[in-house]
């Protein structure tokens, strides 16, 4: 069974508090913030590896990412994947989810392999739109389900459970299918030393705009139907009046304030 997992390197969410906006250019200053593999994506890679262990086949990692984040892609490779590719080109810069998913679609097609399963994480830690998995499936005309767990494959069908607000829906979907995997559905495995060395020996394939034969109007900033305007840092400051004293005194004051704010207690 051939599985491809789409991953994204993102700025480490643990370090978001270090982000600043340059007051002159209004751009985000990202220096000093390390890049990691999007946490949700590790779950997707784990799901793929487990399915490979059951059914045999190949797991391929794909990312539309800048070259400097190669090490993060290599991490996904070191979890146990067989191959990795990065779609990387100056033309891809500034892409929104529409053109990102288009580019990923072209990359998957260019690999020339029929992938039974395309797995992704549910959303990226930075953009958090959750758009790309569904949009990629639509470009490929693959059936899809997002936020799934309990993936099983049998006789050319995948069964999954999709989480919705009111419970879980069970789907049975004819392969090939794209699935975004719920973050806690699988526990990403630890990386072994052997796999680090193995991954270090592999070449990560670089796919350029030319290799992919993309329509230049569909990629990067040019291909993005949404455009970004200003970045705004919200001013949410409030008075911060101090309540001091022993816990009992603090508790009393809190109840007073709550009553004054219209709460019955």
């Amino acid at each position, binding site marked *: 069974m051939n599985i491809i997992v789409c991953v994204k390197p993102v700025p480490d969410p643990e370090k978001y508090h270090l982000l600043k906006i340059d007051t002159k250019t209004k751009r985000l200053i990202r220096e000093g913030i390390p890049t990691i593999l999007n946490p949700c994506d590790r779950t997707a890679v784990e799901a793929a590896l487990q399915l490979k262990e059951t059914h045999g086949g190949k797991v391929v990692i794909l990312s539309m990412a800048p070259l400097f984040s190669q090490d993060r892609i290599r*991490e996904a490779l070191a979890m146990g994947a067989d191959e990795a590719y990065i779609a990387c080109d100056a033309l891809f810069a500034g892409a929104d989810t529409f053109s990102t998913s288009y580019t990923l679609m072209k990359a998957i097609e260019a690999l020339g392999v029929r992938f039974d399963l395309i797995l992704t994480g549910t959303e990226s830690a930075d953009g958090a739109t959750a758009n790309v998995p569904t949009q990629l499936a639509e470009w490929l005309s693959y059936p899809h389900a997002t936020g799934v767990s309990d993936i099983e494959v049998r006789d050319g069908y995948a069964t999954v459970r999709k989480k919705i607000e009111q419970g879980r829906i069970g789907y049975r979907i004819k392969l090939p299918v794209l699935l975004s995997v719920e973050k806690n559905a699988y526990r990403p495995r630890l990386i*072994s*030393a052997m796999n*680090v*060395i193995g*991954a*270090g020996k592999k070449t990560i394939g670089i796919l350029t705009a030319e290799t992919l034969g993309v329509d230049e109007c569909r990629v990067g900033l040019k291909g993005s139907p949404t455009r970004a305007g200003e970045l705004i840092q919200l001013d949410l400051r409030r008075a911060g009046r101090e309540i001091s004293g022993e816990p009992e005194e603090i508790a009393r004051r809190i109840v007073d304030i709550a009553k004054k704010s219209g709460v019955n207690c």
Partner: protein
Amino acid sequence: MDFNFTEDQVMLRKAFADFVAQEVAPKAAEWDASDTCPVELFPMMGELGILGVFVPETYGGVGLGHVERLIALEEIARHSAGLAMFVFTHQLGMAALLENGTEDQKKRYLPLLCAGEKISGLATTEPTGGSDLLGANTTAVLEEDHWVLNGRKCFITNSHLADLAMVTAKSGEDEKGRNLLTIYLIEKGTEGFGPGRKEHKMGLRGSVTGELVLNNVRIPKESVIGAVGKGYGIAAKTIGEVGRASMAAICVGILRGCVEESVKFANERIVYGKPIAKLQPIQFHIAENRLDYEAGKLLLYRAAKTKDEGKSAVAEFSMAKHFGTEAASRAAKRTIELMGAYGVIDEYPAGRFLRDALTSISSGGTSEIQRLIIAGDTLKTFA
């Protein structure tokens, strides 16, 4: 002269650190408090390649070197020096086997040891002395095709756990009447061979240290590791390079812990209305912790790289071990003082760092022994 780790080494360190964050850090304090050894982690560490990282692939290892081995120990010791002790003692046995065993012995035992399916150890110390390796009282007598061993070993780590123990015993005398030692591989359960009392240590808790008793232990001729009579050289080299290197790595882990914990505490602890990190005396402590850590790290990995390049690194490891253990003890005390009353509360690791660092000093040769080794080398090379 490149002071940077390679890309692979950086990735390896991260993989080891992820393992430690998940499986070691949350339980380290508990292992220390209850003095329990997490034997159950061994197969997982084997699978992740931590145990056999320096063993060639043909024998089930990862095929890397001692730099990588020490990176793993440093990462583990950052949180649990006791577990690191357990791991490297196991690796002592593996190293002795790897560098001196026959092809048959290596093929038979190393894969199991790399996988963490069997535990190993090296037993040299006796009541007659640790530094005085040659003054062993444990005897080995050849009777036809069997060796018979009698004696007692003490302060042996992994004493109660080792499936395969490498034990030194006096097998004869040289022409000057000095003891000749041989290293014997003894399997757990061999009649007459077994652990004696278990010691309760001040530090490096979570590793098991105790006695080994040998009472007419009969083992086949093939149990000899290396050549008969060559045991002293093998033991000295293994301890000198692998053992001391590991103690140094453990202390570099402790040193890094001291830097990280003191920075964290200094930034969070508010006294006189501001974090104590703003106070100069605290800054001096932090600077000194940093100096100790950086120096310890450099000495360690310089020695490891030298060994990986195939050169002798005995003096280098001696320097790294001496400096590392002493500096870690200093830094741990400094960190406890920086933290005030919190430093002596068990919820914080500083107390454990100090106990672990002090306990490291006497393992793998005391600081006095190290100074003798360093002096010997210095008098030669700087003459």
